[in-house]
């Protein structure tokens, strides 16, 4: 009896601490329930690296962490997943496009000197670039084509455009608009210009900081750079070698020329010193800010690709919470009704154990903590049904024993001990599936496996300990200690026969 009371005290203490835990630490809701955006990034091997190693993944994460901080997104989390993936969660964010842009590019900034003897080709490309940029600007501003074409600097006849595209080997999808064709041309020109440069002398690794400022004339923005001491010296040597030579200093971002600067002869003596520079790339305010964030964060050691984006609006998430809550309550009520109908007093005990099970389950979610997602809740609801499985096994055994004419207390004890082996076998096979899901699945599959696995373990505790202790407690009341509370009287063997 003392042992029984010890167990009962333990269950009560656990129930109270579970309730306290849930009040203290509310459940964490996943993005599909509270609204927000989630981006999955795949790190891709490049160059001599054929496999992404742990430390490279961490290095990529470090750079991305800095970029996210630069963006100033509140309570975002970035986690590595598996061997070569990262998941960024942005609660409340409805438009993940800026984060995708800023995180998805390598942002390798290079300073390169123009190769001698390419002056003529460069002049042609730069003229084409300027023309394309100005036509593109006027088209985007929706200037009336007739008016714009009157100004020769802004005109680019359809034939000339087609010819330029062909010369640069650009494939244009059928039916592309003029703006799209101009964009393709500009991109091809910027790629071709890079071919006219020597290998990089200086890269974004030599930066200590970056900023942005609006140009004094016009609305465009510049991005300003601060070099390390070593970088500043290299920048001075590079500019000194180009000063007055007529060759250009190229600023290249991810293989595309973003700015071409000439260095005046006045720098022949020492180059541009002071360890600072600015990129005049005619950026918009938004572009300048994104580049600044990327340069501050550093370039990615390996390229990444955004492979998954999921965005859920807050009201859609609230709807998910509402429907799954209703489903959980209805599921609980149906199971409870069934148990009481079929097993009478024992059914009532099973329902109490089920309620304890649900409470413990939620407390464990809060403790670990498990972030609740929609599939996770589905796993929880499903486990409500699985949790009473063990009770059904035990109660059926108790009925068998009663039919054979055993006393109630003996039947209850026999029911528990004889059902044990099949209960354990059954739960172990479910746990094996959970382990496979957890080890090999990603993202929400893992979430489902965790909730189902916790459910299976707790259901063992609930069925084998809670039900038993509660049943024993009730059996200490003589009024309840009657076989008819467990089984229809007709099925009992009559004492007379």
């Amino acid at each position, binding site marked *: 009896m003392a042992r029984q009371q010890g167990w009962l005290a333990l269950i009560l203490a656990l129930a109270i601490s579970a309730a306290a835990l849930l009040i203290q630490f509310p459940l964490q809701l996943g993005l599909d329930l509270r*609204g927000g955006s989630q981006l999955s990034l*795949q790190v891709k091997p490049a160059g001599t690296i054929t496999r992404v190693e742990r430390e490279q993944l961490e290095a990529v994460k470090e750079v991305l962490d800095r970029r996210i901080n630069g963006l100033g997104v509140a309570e975002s989390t970035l986690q590595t997943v598996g061997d070569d993936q990262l998941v960024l969660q942005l609660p409340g964010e*409805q*438009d993940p*496009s800026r*984060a*995708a842009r800023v995180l998805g590019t390598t942002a390798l900034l290079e300073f390169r000197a123009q190769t001698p003897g390419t002056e003529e080709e460069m002049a042609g490309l730069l003229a084409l670039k300027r023309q394309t940029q100005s036509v593109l600007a006027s088209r985007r501003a929706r200037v009336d084509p007739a008016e714009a074409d009157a100004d020769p600097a802004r005109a680019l006849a359809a034939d000339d455009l087609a010819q330029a595209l062909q010369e640069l080997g650009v494939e244009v*999808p059928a039916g*592309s608009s003029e703006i*799209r064709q101009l*964009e393709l041309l500009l*991109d091809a020109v910027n790629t071709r210009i890079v071919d006219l440069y020597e290998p990089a002398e200086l890269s974004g690794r030599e930066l200590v900081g970056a900023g942005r400022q609006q140009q004094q004339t016009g609305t465009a923005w510049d991005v300003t750079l601060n070099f390390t001491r070593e970088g500043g010296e290299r920048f001075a040597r590079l500019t000194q070698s180009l000063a007055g030579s007529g060759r250009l200093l190229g600023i290249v971002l*991810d293989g595309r020329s973003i700015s071409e600067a000439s260095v005046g002869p006045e720098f022949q003596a020492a180059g541009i010193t002071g360890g600072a520079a600015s990129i005049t790339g005619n950026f918009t305010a938004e572009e300048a800010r994104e580049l600044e964030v990327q340069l501050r964060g550093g370039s990615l050691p390996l390229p990444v*690709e*955004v*492979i*998954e*984006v*999921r965005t*859920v*609006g807050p*009201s*859609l998430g609230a709807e998910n919470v509402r429907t*799954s809550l*209703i*489903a*959980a309550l209805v*599921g609980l009520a*149906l*199971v409870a009704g*069934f148990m009481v109908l079929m097993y009478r007093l024992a059914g009532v005990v099973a329902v109490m154990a089920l309620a304890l099970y649900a409470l413990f389950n939620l407390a464990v979610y809060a403790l670990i903590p498990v972030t609740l997602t*929609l*599939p996770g809740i*589905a*796993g929880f*609801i*499903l486990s*409500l*049904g*699985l949790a*009473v*499985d063990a009770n*059904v*096994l035990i109660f*059926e055994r108790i009925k068998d024993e009663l039919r054979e004419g055993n006393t109630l207390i003996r039947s209850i004890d026999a029911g528990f001990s004889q059902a044990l*082996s099949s209960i354990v*076998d*059954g739960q*172990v*096979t479910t*746990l*094996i*599936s*959970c382990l*496979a*899901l957890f080890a*090999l*699945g990603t993202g*929400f*599959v893992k979430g489902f496996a965790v909730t189902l696995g916790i459910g299976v373990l707790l259901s063992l505790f609930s069925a084998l300990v809670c039900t038993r202790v509660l049943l024993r407690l009730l059996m200490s009341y003589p009024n309840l200690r009657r076989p008819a509370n467990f089984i229809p009287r007709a099925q009992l063997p009559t004492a007379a026969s």
Partner: protein
Amino acid sequence: MSPLASLLRVRVNHRRRLLLGLSAAAVFLSLLGLLLSWLSPAIGAPLRAGLDFTGGTQIQIERRCDGACEPLTTASLQRRLAALELPADPGAQAPRLGGGAVQLLDEGRQVVLRLPTLSADQSQAVIAALEPDLGGIEPAGLGIDTIGPSLGAQLLRASLVSLGVSFIGIAAYITLRYDRLFAGLALLCLGHDVLITCGVFAWLGLLAGVEVNSLFAVALLTLAGYSVNDTVVVFDRIREKRQQLQGASLADQADAAVSATLTRSLFTSLTTLLPLLALILFGGSTLFWFAVALSIGVLVGAWSSVAVAPTLLPVLGRR
């Protein structure tokens, strides 16, 4: 009534041909469904693969309307999509949206678009371009899912590997606890349950356009654990009856075990089906087919542990 006969309330082994015939017919129909689906040019796979496996972008938009929404046709939205030119990343081509699918739900309040894989920028461009047609958008009701094509292949591989690992793990455990014959039978039942569930979805895909997503894969894996759970309870009883009823035929021992566990097999399936029923009725569209898949699996699983495993055991155990 002899003591043995009183233990044989249900004699599944007397109706072995009928029971196994029914299972064989269901397996045949399932294989047929999977095959037809594979041969169908519109599907080209044993099951109609959804967004999670094929990759692509799904955009769900809630329209902002006071009272009734203005009437809208999918054709007009499709024309707008076909004419749309999306921004492209440097060096990449932007996809064309002419072939995208448009669906109107909830009396035109919800619009669901199925498009090729789009970047986050491109998704926003699509929404911005459609906004005038839709007459206002409720930003809180927006849902965008983009799955890259490589992720779909990864998911398929991960699902198949996890299923294989579960099979092996479960077989090893049952061999350890029982013997190789029981393990083989449990795996056979498991394959039977998974195959029929897939078969039903192959037919649903063929006839009703139902797609399988990653939740379906999760349902199959859950089933792998659960279906054996049911079978093991019968096995446990068969082992017990073998000792109690020494001298009786294996068929009678198996029947006695089924008789003793039938109520609880039905009841545990029922208690699992009840929460699933709640999910089907109230769980919302995301979990609907997931709950349907699990319900089918639980029903077939109950059938196979009562009608297939105990009737095959005497046949295979005799050799």
